């Protein structure tokens, strides 16, 4: 029965070859969680290329001091769009896309709880991206920075349509994101396979659950703040206009109340993917699942109370500064717990260095550095010096590239066989990894130093006598080295779709439910809804003499 469906979904369909418009129509009108997941991922990859080109242009301009390759206004527009694109139209969509594809499969469900809402979520996100990028066609992209500090966004300082496109686009895509978050929560709480209690969900599912909780709590305040910006600009309201009683300071609080949970929205699913990949490729069960789960919850809760650490230079009172420093430093405790548990999972294992594990190890090695510079930034007086400098730029790229991007690549390499039925080319994947890693280190390592040497972020040029040029030049070379790694990835993803080795149902010999069905899975995911007794149902099947459910929760 199951094999018949496999036939139907790959060989037979390929043999008959309907015209491409059929596939297009199929994808545009789909409510299937897997196809929507793929749409999210494709959208994110397209925006990744766009955001990457913007980054290269930024680096090009900064190669020489006092260069004038890119005029100042365009430079400001480029870094605004780069930040906005990477956070809202690459980071979130790719994670939500992977979640869309794999959460129902991993919990043994046939689809998300609300398939049509799911479709709405994707198309709203997509439309949001289109609206933001429409500003290019209108000839005036936003140049207010991705956190758009008031009153730069007021009509007085930003007359064109760019800021309107930016605010409207994020508002619309925010609706899509909230729809996605609500859908995930309903799916994970309500549609788990029989026997899969909430404490037995695969770890990726657990992190998506808490990411969704953060989405639901943190995106609406951003929506409210964006509405206020639009009211200011179009109805003459005064929220953020200091001349007429509004407050520039209030915007900062509102934005970062969203903005900090946002970075955990971007990192928790990454933690989830790492927690899937490391056990499978170390051939060991995840060490300390309960503590990892608690740490995830801890991060989700603490993240709602740390936002003002982005504002240590605005002249807050001492108690506020010390309080937010303490809460921010607290985040390092659950994050450390995760780090140690991953290492403990590898300890005593039989580590297989396939490409997903390579990226996961890259994640471990780089993310710890970004986490530790985060500790430095949380120590308020240090932040007075390095805040808004290139040190901060280096820090958050280390956690977002070293963290989110490396983990996403680990996840994509891990799950690509499931999504397409074919393996990615390992050799290309390894080249991609090493080029990316080297380019990454060369780009962002020197930025720590230029920041320490007093270089502020977001400057389109710099005087030649500051000693910053060499570090900028290395960073630009690093960015150019990174670029081909993304090309390799795209070539691999597209090429392997047709020429990759057939994957079979479970190429990595993994243990969660998505590997129990065919690759790619049939429209209904599972012929029979599996019954689950532990966190690793396929391990239990393979090792009936020594199943997990005998041991879980008894390791005191």
């Amino acid at each position, binding site marked *: 029965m199951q094999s018949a469906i496999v036939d139907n979904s790959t060989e037979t369909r390929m043999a008959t070859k309907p015209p491409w418009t059929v596939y297009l129509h199929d994808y545009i009108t789909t409510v299937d969680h897997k196809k929507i997941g793929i749409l999210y991922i494709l959208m994110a990859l397209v925006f990744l290329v766009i955001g990457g080109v913007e980054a290269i242009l930024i680096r090009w301009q900064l190669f020489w001091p006092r260069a004038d390759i890119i005029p100042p*206004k365009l430079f400001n527009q480029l870094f605004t769009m780069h930040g906005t694109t990477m956070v809202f139209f690459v980071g979130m969509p790719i994670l939500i896309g992977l979640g869309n594809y794999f959460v129902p499969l991993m919990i043994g469900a046939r689809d998300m709880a609300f398939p049509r809402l799911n479709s709405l979520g994707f198309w709203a996100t997509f439309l949001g991206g289109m609206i933001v990028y429409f500003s290019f066609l209108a000839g005036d992209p936003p140049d207010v920075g991705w956190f758009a500090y008031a009153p730069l966004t007021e009509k007085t*300082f930003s007359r064109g349509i760019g800021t309107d496109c930016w605010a409207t686009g994020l508002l619309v895509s925010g609706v899509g994101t909230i729809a996605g978050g609500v859908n995930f929560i309903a799916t994970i709480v309500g549609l788990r396979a029989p026997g899969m209690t909430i404490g037995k969900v695969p770890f990726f599912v657990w992190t998506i659950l808490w990411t969704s909780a953060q989405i639901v709590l943190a995106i609406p305040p951003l929506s409210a703040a964006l509405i206020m910006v639009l009211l200011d600009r179009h109805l003459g309201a005064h929220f953020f206009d200091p001349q007429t009683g509004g407050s520039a300071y209030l915007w900062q609080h509102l934005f970062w109340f969203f903005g900090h949970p946002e970075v955990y929205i971007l990192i928790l699913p990454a933690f989830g993917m790492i927690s899937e990949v490391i056990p499978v490729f170390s051939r060991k*069960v995840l*060490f300390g699942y309960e503590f990892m789960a608690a740490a995830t919850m801890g991060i989700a809760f603490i993240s709602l109370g740390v936002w003002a650490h982005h504002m240590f230079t605005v002249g807050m009172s001492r108690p506020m500064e010390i309080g937010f420093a303490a809460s921010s430093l607290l985040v390092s405790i659950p994050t450390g*717990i995760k780090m140690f548990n991953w290492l403990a999972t590898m300890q005593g294992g039989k580590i297989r260095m396939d490409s997903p594990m390579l990226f996961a190890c890259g994640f471990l090695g780089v993310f710890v550095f970004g986490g530790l510079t985060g*500790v430095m930034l949380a120590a308020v007086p240090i932040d007075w010096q390095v805040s808004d400098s290139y040190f901060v730029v280096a820090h958050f790229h280390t956690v977002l590239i070293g963290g989110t991007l490396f983990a996403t690549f680990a996840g994509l390499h891990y799950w690509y066989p499931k999504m397409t039925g074919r393996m990615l080319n390992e050799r290309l994947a390894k080249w991609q990894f090493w080029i990316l890693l080297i380019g990454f280190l060369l780009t962002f390592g020197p930025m720590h130093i230029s920041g320490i040497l007093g270089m502020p972020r977001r400057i*389109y040029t710099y005087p030649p006598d500051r000693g910053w040029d*060499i570090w900028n030049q290395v960073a630009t070379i690093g960015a150019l080295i990174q670029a081909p790694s993304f090309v390799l990835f795209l070539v691999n993803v597209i090429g392997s779709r047709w020429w990759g080795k057939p994957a079979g149902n479970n190429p990595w010999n993994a243990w969660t439910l998505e590997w129990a069905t065919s690759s790619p899975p049939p429209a209904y995911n599972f012929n029979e809804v599996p019954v689950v007794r532990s966190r690793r149902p396929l391990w239990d099947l393979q090792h009936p003499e020594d199943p997990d459910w005998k041991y879980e929760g008894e390791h005191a």
Partner: protein
Amino acid sequence: MRRVSSQQDAEEFRLSLRMEANRRSRRLAQGMELGVKSLSNHLLGCLAITALLLDPSNLWGSESPSIFDPATPQATSIRSLFWLVILITGVIFVGVEGLLAFFLYEYSRKKSDPNAEPAQVYGSIPIEVAWTAVPTLIVFVIVMIVVRIEYEVKADAETIPANSIPLRIRVVGHQWWWEYNYFEYDGKPLSMTTANELVIPVGEEGVARPIMLTLESADVCHSYWVPRLSGKTDLIPGRVNELWFETKLAGDYVGQCAEYCGTQHANMLLHVRAVSPDEFEKWLSDQASPAADDPAVAEGKKVFLSETCVNCHTVQGTPAKGRVGPDLTHLMSRHTIAAGMISNTPENLRDWIHDPQDIKPGCLMPAFRLESSKMDLLVKYLGSLK
């Protein structure tokens, strides 16, 4: 020394702006020259890596406004905190990376029977408790130290040294330049305004001369950052912030706006000149006097007053009372124009007035494009404002 080289570079930059024809090639050549120069410098620096470990400012050079090269007790406190946190996190970093490398080597699949699954270990409560408790302790220690440094550095009536002669200045951030109102020194009220270059007195043994800055903004958010003097503090419209530091080291300190504030955020440069108290007092009395009124440049003054200059600029003792742009009363006492972007020479001044957009695209001063004879008179007049 540094100022001279900066002026030369600025000079070269200006020159290349003028030469539209071979602009690109010049830029490339100039940049490459600079690049090669600094590359070789830094290679030499890298060779002296041991020196780096002892004092990083050796490598980074005295040119850079490095936060590891502080000139005030405040910036020094922050540096020591930074070193301490680097030490703590460095140990953790080495530990984690070491473990990762060791595990990857030791538990590589190749070294053991690839087919059998290893022993499954589900977790251990004592171990989890241990690696929760130790980071918690570390966090606690860091918070305690942060509190201490916070009290040491942040502006507060109690942190000002007892035997001190404070200088109080109101700093107003504008798109894209700095306004300084000196309003009190040694308890005596002052009333003088200057722009972009801050001149301050150094303290001496037993007498501190704290600089008390009041930070405000006329338009959008800016941030005041001179790394060798102190951490940054934002200038936010509708709020009044405070920043203070004191130094005993005479010299030039550079920095720039650190909060994105629009098109020319990159060219909102900060120059602080710390001079001996005597020199400072002389400078202060020069600045407090009204503008020079030299009959030889009366024609130029007429041009200045008849053009729209007066809408934005002030020259004390004349009808020019604009507050939108920098006060020009003692323009010639400043080393740079355009918020530190180019050096203050008659040629630069001329080019600037002709078309500021050519030098600082997007800035708020319009192009005047006066006819040559008028421009000569105007530049001569401005040159008399010593």
